[in-house]
């Protein structure tokens, strides 16, 4: 499955024409009295690999969690593929979306978590086939074949019958990546996917993600502290501070000649 560009072939919106796929419009998110996102506007074109950088607490993870609909925005709207994520049009008015609408739009989005969150009660193969079978309606054989291909892609073709607890953190995270890809999402969200790993296991996971970034046209939104990785795979880097995008541009530009003082400070601290 290496150099396979088929990961996206079943997508409802296969066009990777650089059109706008994700749009945040004046999104506000507060936790108690703490405003994490403050009228945030940004957009991501389809097929792009975007990395969100910035100090902790600047709202990067919140953006991914909003997109995954794990949390709801307090104000503003989010669109994915032209569809409102947490709202729907009813009689020309924009109202909070019902569970059904949210579930439908959510199918286009996959997420890999910092803590892997594999299902410990299922073997590796079943972790990957569960959603394609019960959500997408694939046959068991079809789903298993897809799962095996993905496991080969992440270098774990021989661990189908292991339980997650029998795997190292790095292996678990690679299974989690395969699990997310098995749904053939348009957008893949990567939430600090190497932060919980022992240092020697980080490279294996990043290699897999590099491979996916370079061989597929899946849109990636990535929150990471691995700046070299970000530089490698990103088409666009967004620098966050205090709930706003303070600078954005190509990886080359942000990492070599950042304009904003805060970006310079942040990069000199982490690089």
């Amino acid at each position, binding site marked *: 499955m290496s150099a396979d560009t088929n990961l996206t072939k079943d997508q409802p919106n296969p066009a990777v024409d650089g059109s706008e796929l994700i749009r945040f419009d004046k999104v506000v998110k507060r936790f108690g009295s703490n405003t994490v996102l403050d009228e945030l506007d940004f957009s991501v074109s389809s097929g792009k690999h975007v990395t969100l950088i910035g100090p902790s607490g600047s709202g990067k993870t919140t953006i991914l969690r909003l997109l995954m609909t794990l949390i709801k925005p307090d104000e503003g709207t989010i669109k994915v593929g032209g569809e409102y994520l947490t709202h729907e049009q009813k009689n020309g008015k924009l109202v909070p979306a019902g569970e059904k609408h949210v579930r439908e739009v959510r199918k286009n989005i996959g997420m890999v978590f910092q803590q892997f*969150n594999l299902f410990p009660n299922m073997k590796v193969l079943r972790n990957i086939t*569960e959603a394609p079978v019960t959500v997408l309606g694939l046959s068991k054989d079809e789903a298993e074949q897809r799962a095996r291909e993905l496991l080969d892609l992440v270098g774990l073709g021989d661990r189908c019958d292991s339980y997650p607890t029998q795997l190292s953190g790095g292996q678990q995270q690679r299974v989690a990546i395969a699990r997310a890809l098995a749904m053939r999402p348009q957008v893949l969200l990567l939430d600090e996917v190497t932060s919980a790993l022992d240092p020697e296991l980080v490279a294996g996971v990043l290699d897999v993600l590099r491979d996916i970034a370079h061989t597929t046209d899946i849109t990636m939104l990535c929150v990471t502290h691995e700046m070299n990785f970000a530089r490698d795979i990103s088409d666009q880097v967004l620098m966050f501070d205090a709930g706003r995008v303070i600078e954005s541009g190509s990886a080359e530009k942000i990492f070599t000649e950042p304009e904003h003082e805060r970006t310079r400070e942040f990069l000199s601290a982490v690089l």
Partner: protein
Amino acid sequence: MNNGTDKWDWGAVSDFMPHFWDGLLITLQVLALGSLISFGLGLVWALAFRAPTRFIRWPVGIVTEFIRNTPLLVQLFFLYFVLPEWDIQYSAMTTGTIAIGLHYSTYTAQVYRAGIEAVPVGQWEAAKALSLSYTRTWTAVILPQAIRRVIPALGNYVIAMLKDTPLLASIGVLELLQRSRLEAAQTFQYTEALTVVGVAFILIAYPSSLLLRALERRLVR
């Protein structure tokens, strides 16, 4: 004839044994069916505690608190002597089994609740990120993990239930205690019959609790 206070009479023991086995069978039947009721109904309560609407959560909360905080003996009497006034009447055995199952379901509900709450929030999020349906999230992800954790605690309630089955003697169920009372009422040899029953409880309960501890070590990792 032995007056029952002089010395231990093995003859009385062997006279009692046929009744003992009958009683043991009844006790184990009550225990098995009562356990099934408490496991099933307890899970229903536990899920109702998390229902999206308070119109389910509140009534279920009140009813289970009520049952949990009134004595099983009172509930037995109520079901057996009061309900027939509304033409709801079952055999002592059926009433006793339902009562004990219902009573213990309010305890197992708390066990399930703790087990469900112990499943990490990341599991819910992963299920959501994969668009799993509500039903699938519960049946394939949350409950298998929650129930595995609570099996030892459920087992402890089965042992507690075993020790509460003699309460059913009070409504005339012919379980172990009631058999020994009937036997002794005829022969006046209380020592033998009651001792046999007491020993029987130890012989069932103690090995069971050892078994549970072994199971706990295997399951809770």
